[in-house]
């Protein structure tokens, strides 16, 4: 069943209430993720991109149920898991894993890395300690760490090696889906490529499905089969990665992709750049109509009042704009 969805969201939303309880304004609500409908098929890598604060991490955390979901539904293999309790989720946890940006923050500095990788096996698995040792050795080999590294502490590793430990932990229980939130952003440029390649190898070997977040758009393009562009909590464009990068349909995606600095080998080969005026608006007080209209270079009156829906304008390509470039 190559094409069956492994994960699906239907109009998923996440609200946070913030603010001072006794203030005149009372509680205020941030709509961090708003009306997201996304289908993830087995074996693919969906890349999430968008400016800081647009809701990528919040969506990622909803997808693995690290956050409770405020609106809509979350389905895993067709099964509605939106409001399953922690104990009902337990068998699923193993199959849904997450890797975070800062490898050192997520690893206990006082534990040996061999222990850290064994931990999920102890908690979830039914393995004997001999089997656990063997599995840890196997995992170290898979992620490219030396067998004698098991006795080391996290601080004795470089950033890239620590991220390998984080990945070994995430794949320890043979998950089906791994959500990677900025897994290479904290790494040196020369080490990023190693981890990107490792993730690709593991995906092939272990038949993994990835949801991949990074602010480096060329890294996202490299690893993703499909990408979803987010703006202020919602998806504004979705489609095959290479197609969207080559011909973005939404004015925001166009600006975002054109802003990526690339190495030009010819002196006059500068690409045309769309510089957006204004800053990302606050999700506390989102603009009316199309959320992007205050910064959109082609906005017209209609955009101020009427919010465009995400619609499939061509098989596989979706856009939320009244006037997409198609």
């Amino acid at each position: 069943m190559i094409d069956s969805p492994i994960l699906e969201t239907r109009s998923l939303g996440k609200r946070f209430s913030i603010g001072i309880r006794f203030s005149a304004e009372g509680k205020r609500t941030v709509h961090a993720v708003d009306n997201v409908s996304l289908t993830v098929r087995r074996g693919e890598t969906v890349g999430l991109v968008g400016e800081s604060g647009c809701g990528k991490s919040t969506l990622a955390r909803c997808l693995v149920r690290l956050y409770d979901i405020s609106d809509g539904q979350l389905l895993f293999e067709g099964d509605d898991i939106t409001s399953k309790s922690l104990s009902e989720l337990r068998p699923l946890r193993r199959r849904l894993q997450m890797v975070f940006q800062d490898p050192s923050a997520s690893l206990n500095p006082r534990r040996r890395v061999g222990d850290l990788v064994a931990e999920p096996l102890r908690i979830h698995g039914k393995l004997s300690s001999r089997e656990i040792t063997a599995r840890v050795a196997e995992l170290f080999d898979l992620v490219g760490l030396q067998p004698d590294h098991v006795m080391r502490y996290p601080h004795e590793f470089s950033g890239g090696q620590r991220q390998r430990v984080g990945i070994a932990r995430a794949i320890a229980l043979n998950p089906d889906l791994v959500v990677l939130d900025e897994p290479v952003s904290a790494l040196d440029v020369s080490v990023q490529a190693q981890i990107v390649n490792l993730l690709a190898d593991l995906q092939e070997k272990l038949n993994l499905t990835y949801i991949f977040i990074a602010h480096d758009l060329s890294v996202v393009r490299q690893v993703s089969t499909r990408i979803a562009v987010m703006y202020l909590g919602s998806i504004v464009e979705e489609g095959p990665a290479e197609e969207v990068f080559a011909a973005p349909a939404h004015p925001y995606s166009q600006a975002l992709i054109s802003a990526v600095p690339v190495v030009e080998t010819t002196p006059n080969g500068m690409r045309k750049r769309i510089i957006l005026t204004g800053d990302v608006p606050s999700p506390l007080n989102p603009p009316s109509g199309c959320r992007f209209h205050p910064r959109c270079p082609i906005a017209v009156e209609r955009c101020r009042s009427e919010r465009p829906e995400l619609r499939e304008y061509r098989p596989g390509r979706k856009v939320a704009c009244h006037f997409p470039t198609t």
Partner: protein
Amino acid sequence: MILSVRDLKVSFRTNDGLVRAIDGVSFDLEESEILGVVGESGSGKTVSLLAVMGLITDPNAIIEGSIRYKDRELVGLPARELRRLRGNEIAMIFQDPMTALTPVYTIGWQIAEQIRAHRNISKAKAMERVEELLAEVNFPNPHEAMSRYPHQLSGGMRQRAVIAMALSCNPALLVADEPTTALDVTVQAGILDLVRKLRATHKSAVVFITHDMGVVSELADRVMVMYAGRVVERGTRTELFSDPRHPYTRALLGSIPPLTGEKPRRLPAIPGSPPSLLRLPQGCAFGPRCPVQYEPCVADKPDLRGGTHAAACYRVAQA
């Protein structure tokens, strides 16, 4: 010549031994020229700049070499003199704009104070100038922005406020240490535009530090690539990007995934990771990761050789 740095060396005495953070860096900078400094974290970008600015205060630091700013030697200059230069002619922007801002005052007040510290003008006149400066760095509503506190601004707006502050003294030299690293690419594009404008309208010379090859290739006139405290390659932008010579520069450029065209199945990655400055190899520091290392590389460190386009590598010297 605005700035001329010769054989700059910075080491730190630590409990684990001597950290050779900068080991013989030399470069020149002309008026209205943008020098891009690229390198990975720990390669010595920040330390070399802090040394140039006289901002290394660590008592365990050992600084050697010569730093000439407009024919004045800065190494050994009294702290008070350096401080005057920094406010008047040399401006700095850092990755975190809050290093230059105080949370308790409005940005209008802070920029006005900066102006008044160096020029004898009335408060009202200074405020007028602040409004002009904020307009120059593209605040949509400069008058309103003056009364905002730093925490009421986004990261990109804060960085623009710091640039406005830097502009207020008409700097001959602007030193920028990863000023866009924490920002979105959309916001970064605007800041890079501002730096170009600053060079064009104020004739400022700029040293721009980044780890992003794309950023230097779009901004810099000349580029210096650093690895483990040394310059491994330098040249004009065209020389460096159309004819990279040092194996490290080549490998680094090769490991960046393309934004257009065909995707490689695997990225050409560089094995290993940057060396610890406490245990540098005796020979070329890139040797353990270098695909073309051979005998001469192990014995001694290669010197930077060549004209405007120079590389520190035995293989390149041979060719």
